[in-house]
């Protein structure tokens, strides 16, 4: 497996794990309060829809000329990666609330209970919420699988990494029988943002006609450079940006795995 393929697999695995954890929380909430069979039907339908999207768009993307593919996919990955990275930086700096699976689970459970009596058979609410949750969380992963996979001509590897992540999250969810609140989601989103931005930058520039010094080995410099720059921004934000009113400093909470010292 080449370095780029390893990067593809790791990026997809991390992105998929994060999204699967969020989807699992929703499915757990409606499954435990409403109907497991209907919730699982929603999960199955959404999974089929996502698989159909990847199967339909994958071959179309991989048939594009490599230059066009790289500049388009590189640009999209970069736009996407910068969004992930920006939010992760803001969360690490304490300027954006971190995703709280316990809180999401509580909200979803209350909403499901508020509907009152459950139908004896098929529960449309449990189906719809599960379907929507899995589809929406999965779309981002499908996008990453398609773009990364198409660029590397390895959609199958990307899909396998996504499937492995889903299976791991399901296994952990079954074992815990509760939302996976201890998964370091922000650290994983930080890592995905760094990887998507680095690969997007690399492929986008190549597609636009630039040649990287050292060829593919340039990624070995790009990825740590983006990571260092992102951590430097977190560090500067924690020191410089005041909280509302401009009086209190941002609390320097312990970093997850980004290597930033408080």
């Amino acid at each position, binding site marked *: 497996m080449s370095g780029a393929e390893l990067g593809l697999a790791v990026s997809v695995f991390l992105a998929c794990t994060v999204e699967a954890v969020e989807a699992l929380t929703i499915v757990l909430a409606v499954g435990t309060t409403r109907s497991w069979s209907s919730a699982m039907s929603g999960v199955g339908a959404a999974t089929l829809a996502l698989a159909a999207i990847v199967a339909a768009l994958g071959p179309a993307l991989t048939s594009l000329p490599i230059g066009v593919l790289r*500049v388009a996919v*590189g*640009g*999209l990955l*970069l*736009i*996407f990666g*910068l*969004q992930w*990275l*920006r939010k992760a*930086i*803001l969360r690490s*700096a304490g*300027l*954006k609330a971190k995703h709280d699976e316990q809180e999401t689970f509580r909200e979803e459970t209350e909403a499901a209970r508020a509907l009152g009596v459950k139908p004896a058979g098929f529960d449309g609410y449990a189906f719809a919420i599960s379907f929507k949750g899995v589809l929406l969380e999965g*779309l*981002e992963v499908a*996008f990453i699988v398609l773009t990364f996979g198409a660029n590397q001509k390895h959609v199958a590897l990307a899909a396998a990494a996504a499937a492995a992540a889903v299976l791991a999250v399901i296994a952990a969810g079954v074992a815990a029988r509760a939302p996976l609140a201890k998964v370091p989601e922000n650290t994983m989103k930080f890592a995905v943002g760094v990887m998507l*931005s680095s690969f997007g*930058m690399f492929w*986008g*520039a190549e*597609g*636009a*006609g*630039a*040649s*990287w*010094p050292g060829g593919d080995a*340039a990624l070995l410099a*790009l990825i740590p*450079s*983006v990571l260092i*720059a*992102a951590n430097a*921004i977190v560090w500067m*934000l924690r020191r410089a*940006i*005041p*909280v*509302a009113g*401009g009086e209190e400093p941002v609390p320097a909470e312990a970093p997850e795995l980004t290597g930033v010292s408080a």
Partner: protein
Amino acid sequence: MSRVRAFCLGVWDFIVGDDWRTALGVVLALGLTALIADASIAAWWVMPLAVLGLLALSIRRAARGAARSG
């Protein structure tokens, strides 16, 4: 709102997100890279500089917004 409009807005929101300036900056940086590379000049440095600048500006806008609203 028509379904087509809603779909287009959904796609826009999915890809561009809540910071269109960053998306526009990425497109412009790729264009600049293509122009420089077309002139047979080394152009690999454009994207790293652009990404650093776009990320810093995006964070700055978001941080200021958070400080104002927080």
